[in-house]
């Protein structure tokens, strides 16, 4: 039975979504399906019929990086990069649900995504900075 992950990587040729474990532990295959963050290795492809799917390829708009991607670059949130697409998806999802997270909320929001390189500190910083930027942008647009 084809998994959503296989359809994304092989049929749609969107290889930004990664396979780290194939059993829903590492989160490298995280995508947003009908507005919810899921591990695409655990979703049977048939379940996604007619659904709205957002992968890492749909996060930046044209040449403009998403604020989460921008802050991962600046804060050192990406090292080897293999967990990064999933981590960015989890962060985008978190900031949508919770625009002003504190550190505990960020750590909780990323708990389903494993990173072996960073020890998570700089990923937490990246998400915090992205949230701050969003607040600044909102304030600037108000004033």
């Amino acid at each position: 039975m084809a998994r959503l992950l296989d359809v994304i990587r092989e049929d749609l040729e969107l290889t930004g979504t990664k396979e780290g474990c194939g059993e829903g532990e590492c989160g490298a295959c995280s995508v947003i399906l009908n507005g919810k963050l899921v591990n695409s290795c655990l979703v049977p492809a048939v379940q996604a019929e007619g659904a709205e799917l957002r992968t890492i390829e749909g996060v930046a708009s044209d040449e403009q990086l998403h604020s989460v991607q921008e802050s991962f670059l600046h804060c050192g949130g990406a090292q080897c990069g293999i967990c990064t697409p999933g981590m960015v998806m989890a962060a985008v999802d978190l900031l949508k649900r919770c625009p002003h997270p504190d550190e505990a909320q960020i750590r909780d929001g990323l708990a389903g995504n494993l990173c072996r390189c960073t020890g998570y500190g700089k990923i937490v910083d990246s998400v915090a900075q992205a949230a701050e930027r969003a607040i600044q942008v909102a304030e600037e647009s108000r004033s």
Partner: protein
Amino acid sequence: MNPSLHIGHSRIRKEGRAKVTGEAQYTDDVRMEYMLYGVTVRSSVPRGILKGIEFGEGIPWDEFVIVTAKDVPGELNVALIERDQPFLALDRINHPEEPVVLLAHADRYLLEKARAAVHLDIEPLPPLFDLEESLACKEVIWGQDNLFKKILIEKGDVDSVWAGAAHVVEGEYKTGSQEQLYIEPNGAIAVANAEAGVTVWGSLQCPYYVHTALKALFNLPDDKVRVIQMETGGGFGGKEDYPSLIAGHAALLSLKAGGRPVKIVYDREEDMVATTKRHPSRTRIRSAFDAEGRLLALDIDFALDGGAYLTLSPVVLSRGAIHAGGPYRCPNTSIRARAAATNTPPHGAFRGFGAPQSLFAIERHMDVAAAQMGMDPIALRKQNLLRMGDATATGQIIKENVDLPGLLDHALEKLDYSAKKENHRIHNASLGPIKKGLGFAIFMHGCGFTGSGESYLASVAGVEGRADGKVHVLAASTEMGQGANTILSQVVAEVLKVPLEYVEVVRPDTALVPDSGPTVASRTTMVVGKLVQEAAIGLRQTLIQSGFLKVPYDGEGFSSAVKQYIAKNDHLKAYSQYNTPPQIVWDDQLYKGDAYTTFAWACYAAEVAVDTRTFEVKVEDFVAFQEVGRVLNPTLAEGQIEGGVAQGIGYGLSEQVVWSKGRMANGQMTNYIMATSMDIPRIRVYFEENPYPNGPGGAKGLGELPMDGPAPALLNAVQDALGTSAPREIPLTPERLMDLLDLMDFLEPSNV
């Protein structure tokens, strides 16, 4: 005052944009026309004689490409230190994950069915799983005595000391295996045919290791084998030697498939179970101190379980043995080290490479000794820490002005040691179930290859001016997350005095880059960085002497000089080859002299809370204080330390490889427990900068250092929390701590 343009600045990771957008191409992201998938059939029996291979019913075998040892055109064994590990078993089986048959097919699902339908007829032989049984030669499974390597380091005369010493303290310490657990599993794609030779794309750390192994496997000359590194999703040593096997397997299948590309990517379980892990260790220490706590003698017996084949065990043992005495001045030292065979998959490289094992033992032992002698562990360390002019166990005189007592003080200050100590005294006196403790470890890590390793390697790296006016860095050093691309670019851009975007690092490809050695041993920044620095100096000189580059210049001026030079001379390249710094002398036979050109130094301090109901050890605070020469890129350097500490915390507390008949029984992320974002605190990282004159911009190596300190610091903190020196084995899982405390009747009503 001449401020640096790039050195010391947190430049953004060169390939960062491709990584945050998902555009970076990893091995499994590549698909080629007519590509087949490959899988490996493994022995499952730990030791025996291969009698036959049966291909079961219900599979259209004629559609499959099938390879066995008989199809190997050249050398059957992997060319590394010794040639003892076969690419495919011919008749002897030495561990339960021994590759025996390779299969390829375009249909991955059918391929899995076929893998299960291959039956191996193996006559079992008695296996050996226990390190002590191997040392005692209960069975002889390798060579004459099961020993891959033995080392003796001797200084003074330990036996002259015991009788007159005020204190003699003995202890035994054990460390478990550890899985590198890079999130991208191992994988390779190969195209092989008789005319063109072999080309491999893979997730790997050391392109030239693979190159060497494939040349022997196919009996081909240098230029008929090409190895290209794809974006690599973490290595940590786990992609140091094993990629030679996978690349060889994929290439053997491709050759038999008439040159069709073959991709082998392991799933998580196969990667965890079959590929290399950290060597388990056992260390016995006998130490003598005078009445003031001065170290008089250290007698250390250090043993590593190497698994079924020699692979890298001799060099892992070497680094472990040299670090076994810790950062201490000790007039009489004897270190006996042995790496022995067992019928498990070979253990290999993992960040730290033997040093985390032996440093765990000595740093844990110092706290055990302090407790036994009734001394404060800080005061005991300060009596004995190496200072400039002192000699290490191998007789290496410390020539740099290192201030280890200062490093210790600074780390403890940052942890707020005194205030926390007092708080804990009050907290632990109450009857609550949570006990708190503080612990630290002080240690060093040798930078670059051990002993004469760098001289033998004689690495070469270079830079090349391009027709577009940019400069390319030519090195075999691989980017695997640690930041090699960015650091090498910064070093070159600093020399050339140009913006960072004028420098690009060429993807390691043995057809394009020279052999700058493997990407291991904390050597890329310090050793290869120095080579590209020298090459860049040469390139700049050439441009100035040619008259095309006039000082002062800006980025555009430089770029146009490069273009003009190339228009006139076709190419602009400069290389540099490694030379051992002066006054570095090493004797490989006696194990005496300068084991490393320099060391990185550190003190790590931790606060833990131990729950005496669940036996969980929670890390509440962690300070990593180190001297790594000059820091070239603070964000990248901090990232290396934080990540290494996280792996070290796992090594100390949770990452247990469970063995069952020579096979890892918990080869899944579900039950092999690495830290999530919820499990570890913010790692607080501090650098003391002391520029090292032989490193580029004053840098030493730092990649492995953070792996060495966390485990002993955490177990020392548990000793402080519980008032018992019993924990001597890692990982200190809740189950293990419960058994230990049960044994001691720690939970007698009076203690609860």
